[in-house]
């Protein structure tokens, strides 16, 4: 519902990053109001302000206005320029919180993205993406859409709460728009890979996580290959921490990813097992992509060519968040999806692209 002034308005702190990203891609101004207005501590959080700063840095000519109480933001997007920069992330969220939305902008920028994110790489306090799940869970999905040269390097690790990590996002492919996809077959997974990592703790913890995960994954019968990644010394940040990321791979390049980070008092074996079972749960309740990849797929399909893209969806994936994504997309791009229920488990989702063109390919 855009008002007369042409500003799309949103309420609340839901999908904060998605709304700003969609506004940037669509080139439309938005206003978000009532941000945690009933909260004990109202308004924007440190990481949200930090994210706004990051957006300001990768675009040219954007305009951000935050109200006095911090409960409202007006954002007028500029053009995506990218470039080489360093972003010091707020310590309330891990770097994944900032990297994830950049994946939506980087391929459509004027210049290549090369950003170093400094901060916490993994945290047990929030459910944000770790560098591993971005690398193994989101980047392969982007490859499906024609974004081939994008990579993420972990230069230093840093666990919560103090951090000290450094991650480098590099996007070399600049494409006019994502390819239209037709994913009608439910992939079969032929291997499970993973990485079990730790900073500043005994290396045996890493192997204990692997044992826990392998035990739960053995009955699947596929090849399970989990790498141990122990970081020590200067590059391992300032806090102790450990975690595991598991990914199921299909031969056609689809991925399902699950991850977990250890907190105080948890047994490493339990974390391994939990993540392994979560991976199985995600596989059994998803179709082509997992819940954590769905948002990326929906946005990429929306900004595709004016063709109809299709993909198979599991009915359990049609949840509250899914509808919020679709409504936010509609509000900024005006397009609707069509869902055809095929049977009791699966549906076919079709989206017509809006015919978006990246700034790098636009003729000024």
């Amino acid at each position: 519902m855009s008002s007369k002034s042409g500003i799309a308005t949103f309420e609340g702190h839901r999908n904060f990053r998605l709304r700003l990203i969609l506004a940037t891609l669509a080139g439309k101004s938005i206003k978000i109001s009532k941000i945690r207005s009933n909260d004990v501590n109202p308004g924007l959080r440190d990481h949200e302000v930090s994210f706004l700063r990051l957006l300001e840095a990768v675009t040219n000519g954007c305009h951000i206005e935050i109200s006095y109480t911090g409960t409202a933001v007006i954002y007028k997007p500029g053009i995506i320029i990218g470039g080489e920069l360093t972003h010091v992330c707020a310590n309330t969220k891990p770097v994944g919180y900032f990297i994830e939305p950049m994946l939506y902008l980087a391929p459509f920028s004027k210049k290549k993205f090369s950003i170093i994110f400094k901060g916490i790489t993994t945290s047990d306090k929030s459910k944000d993406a770790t560098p591993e799940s971005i690398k193994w869970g989101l980047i392969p999905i982007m490859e499906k859409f024609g974004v081939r040269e994008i990579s993420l390097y972990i230069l230093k690790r840093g666990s919560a709460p103090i951090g000290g990590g450094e991650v480098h996002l590099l996007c070399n492919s600049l494409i006019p728009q994502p390819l239209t996809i037709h994913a009608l077959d439910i992939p079969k997974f032929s291997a499970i890979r993973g990485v079990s990592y730790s900073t500043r703790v005994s290396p045996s913890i890493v192997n204990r996580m692997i044992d826990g995960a392998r035990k739960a994954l053995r009955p699947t019968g596929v090849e399970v290959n989990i790498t141990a990644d122990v970081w020590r010394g200067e590059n391992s940040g300032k806090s102790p921490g450990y975690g595991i990321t598991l990914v199921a791979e299909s031969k056609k390049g689809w991925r399902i990813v699950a991850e977990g980070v250890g907190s105080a008092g948890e047994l490493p074996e339990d974390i391994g097992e939990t993540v392994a079972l979560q991976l199985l749960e995600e596989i059994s309740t998803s179709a082509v992509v997992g819940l954590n990849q769905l948002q990326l797929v929906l946005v990429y399909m929306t900004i595709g060519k004016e063709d109809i893209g299709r993909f198979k969806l599991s009915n359990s994936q049609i949840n509250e968040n899914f509808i919020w994504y679709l409504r936010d997309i509609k509000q900024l791009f005006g397009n609707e999806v069509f869902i055809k229920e095929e049977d009791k488990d699966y549906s076919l989702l079709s989206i017509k692209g809006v015919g978006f063109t990246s700034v790098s390919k636009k003729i000024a």
Partner: protein
Amino acid sequence: LQGSVRRRWDINKLLYLSNIDPAEVIKRWKGQEEDDEEEEEDIEQEEDFFTKKSSAEVSEDLDQFQPTYPSIDILRKKYEDSDEEYENGYKFLKDRFLVAPKMSEENG
């Protein structure tokens, strides 16, 4: 007559009705809607009208990457306990994995 026939909603019609909350959309689409309960809720809301709204809430994080899964105990039950032959492959995951045919023991 009422109640015996549960109307099944077309998800496409519900998706973009902005006056219906997404949580409600899911309920209707799955056919879990219970009219009686809703009316009762309305009455309660009227009573609440004059009481002070508890303003000290802590907002939930509505912008996160990892989905919420059932607790480990439920998952364990689902995958390990209820599947008596899980050692040979989880039953309901069999069609999601591509497994090389096993060499039978006699051959080896």
